[in-house]
């Protein structure tokens, strides 16, 4: 697959993804789903990149491809100068502890047969770090850091905790090895709105405290708005717009981003939704994506050119990149 443009890429990134393709075989016919079709992204040290798109657009697959779980079909993923895709399993294992992941379902992220103390210290046990007393002290430390009382929590099993508390335990397990990058795969989507804010605040706090770099995956632009420095919008396996969080929210350039922003409910009974720019239809099948621009089948601005020519990523405003032939006007 040809590159989809690289104007949004920088040279000084900690994590860098280049033209990554992830394919899954479908059935026995030999057909393949392109979950991710040539995506390039990068994350600077200390930055939080929000990755937004609707369900099925390949954002979680991309997050896992960075961890090489599974390894991408094509393309390159470099972390701190090391190419991960070509590493042997043994060398990859050594790198893995530097990148950790938090998952959407807080309860099934934890082994139901283990006690919380065991769950959180398991990464240390795997790496045989420190004496049992030192490990225990580390566990107490991270549990306190995520706002759980170690005394009561350690001897309990996951089912005795709420979703939000389970997500705290996941975060504690994630932090215990002292990672540099955390990939958050919809960490708050399964939680109540009030708990969502708590977990988002906790992630923010942990990021400051432990100097983390984050990739924050979500299907909801409202969720990533505050936490992200930069946001990438993904549609059907491709990136369509990249911009700093505030810029993206105030002046979206891609019609898809605009549609997503309009879909955020406004808490004002007098507010009238603008029907003209509304997105219609379903996400096309990634088995046979549309030619040219992948969004054209649902785009209110689509023209003939969009069907024949794939739009490349270009910089329309400072640090505001979009892959669209007919972007929205900038004020």
């Amino acid at each position: 697959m040809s590159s989809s443009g690289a104007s949004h890429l920088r040279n000084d990134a900690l994590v860098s993804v280049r033209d990554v393709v992830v394919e899954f075989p479908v059935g026995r016919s030999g057909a393949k789903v392109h979950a991710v079709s040539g995506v390039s992204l990068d994350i600077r040290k200390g930055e939080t990149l929000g990755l937004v798109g609707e369900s099925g657009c390949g954002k979680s697959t991309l997050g896992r491809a960075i961890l090489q779980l599974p390894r991408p079909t094509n393309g390159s993923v470099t972390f701190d100068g090391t190419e991960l895709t070509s590493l042997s399993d043994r060398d990859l294992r050594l790198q893995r502890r530097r990148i950790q992941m938090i998952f959407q379902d807080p309860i099934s992220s934890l082994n139901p047969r283990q006690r919380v103390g065991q769950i959180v210290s398991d990464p240390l046990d795997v790496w045989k770090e420190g004496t049992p007393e030192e490990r225990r002290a580390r566990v107490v430390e991270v549990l306190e850091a995520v706002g759980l009382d170690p005394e009561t929590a350690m001897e309990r099993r996951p089912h005795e905790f709420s979703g939000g508390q389970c997500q705290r335990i996941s975060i504690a397990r994630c932090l215990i090895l002292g990672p540099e990058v955390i990939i958050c795969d919809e960490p708050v989507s399964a939680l109540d709105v009030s708990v969502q804010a708590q977990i988002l605040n906790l992630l923010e706090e942990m990021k400051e405290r432990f100097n983390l770099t984050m990739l924050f995956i979500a299907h909801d632009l409202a969720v990533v708005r505050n936490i992200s420095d930069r946001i990438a919008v993904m549609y059907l396996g491709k990136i369509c717009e990249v911009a700093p969080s505030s810029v993206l929210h105030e002046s979206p350039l891609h019609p898809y981003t605009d549609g997503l922003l309009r879909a955020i409910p406004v808490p004002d009974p007098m507010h009238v939704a603008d029907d003209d720019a509304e997105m219609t239809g379903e996400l096309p099948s990634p088995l046979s994506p549309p030619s040219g621009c992948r969004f054209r089948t649902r785009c209110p601005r689509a023209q003939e050119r969009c069907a024949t020519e794939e739009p490349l990523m270009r910089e329309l405003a400072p640090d505001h990149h979009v892959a669209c032939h007919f972007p929205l006007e900038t004020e």
Partner: protein
Amino acid sequence: MTDDQTGVDAELARDSHINPDSLFAAETAAELSPVPAKRRRRNLFFWAAVVWVAVIFLAALFADLLPLPPYAEAIGPPRVGPFQQFGHGMILGTDPFGRSNLSRVVYGARVSMIIGVVAAAVGLLVGGAVGLLSGYLKGWTDRTSSFVVDTLLAFPPLVMLLTITAVLQPKVSTILIGLSILVIPTFVRLERAAAMSWSERPFVLAARSYGTKDFRIAVRHILPNSVLTLITYVPTVISAMIVAEGSLSFLGLGLPSPTPSWGGMIAEGKSSLRLAPSVVFVPAAVVFLTVLSFNLIGEYVRARFDKRTKR
């Protein structure tokens, strides 16, 4: 999300430590709730089954210490019905050779228990290990083991047992080999399916992402979760093995006389079934009660396990 909303939520976050009091309160409330009558009756059956199995086990274990007449010698007239005479070992009557039914049932329990428990244990260990590997590793390991398992399952079980006992000497070990081969595929399939579904869980992915090696993931994360499904199946397998041993002995391919086994006793009594049904009835009743007990225990354990997993 507006800024002041986040502020309020941050405050909430600070008091979000788990509150031990509320947890305990929930537990005591559950304890105080009255036990429904249906469940109590079910418990009664379960305990009766446990007692029966315990009696059979203990009898099999301590048969030599019990004041029983030798099982290979005639102690009275043949084909005495149960509860007719109450002399030494006569309470359950005698078989067509005048031997004590009580002695033979007790010593026969040895054969049935050894065969049931050992075959189920071998099936659990071997089948569980193979199933765990093929369900977790997938790929060629899974294809190979699935091929072998499918082949074994396609073989008519009785034909296989007949072949094994015909080729090898009819000994306890021979029957054990045959029956173990018979139950292994079932355990492989159960464990494989369980291991497959557990290995898709995010906690397994998380374990891999912090560098856990495959062996540790299989043993620490997948096995403890999937093994319960297998264990609940063990009592059912034991009862099936008792029936299988009975069928083999009934076909004359069991243990050679005079070693008693329940199936053998039924086989010896079948010619005089019309004349003296008690000769068949005594071992048949023991087999019936034992198999029923194991099935009840299996069912109870499964129900308990289901409730725990649903929580």
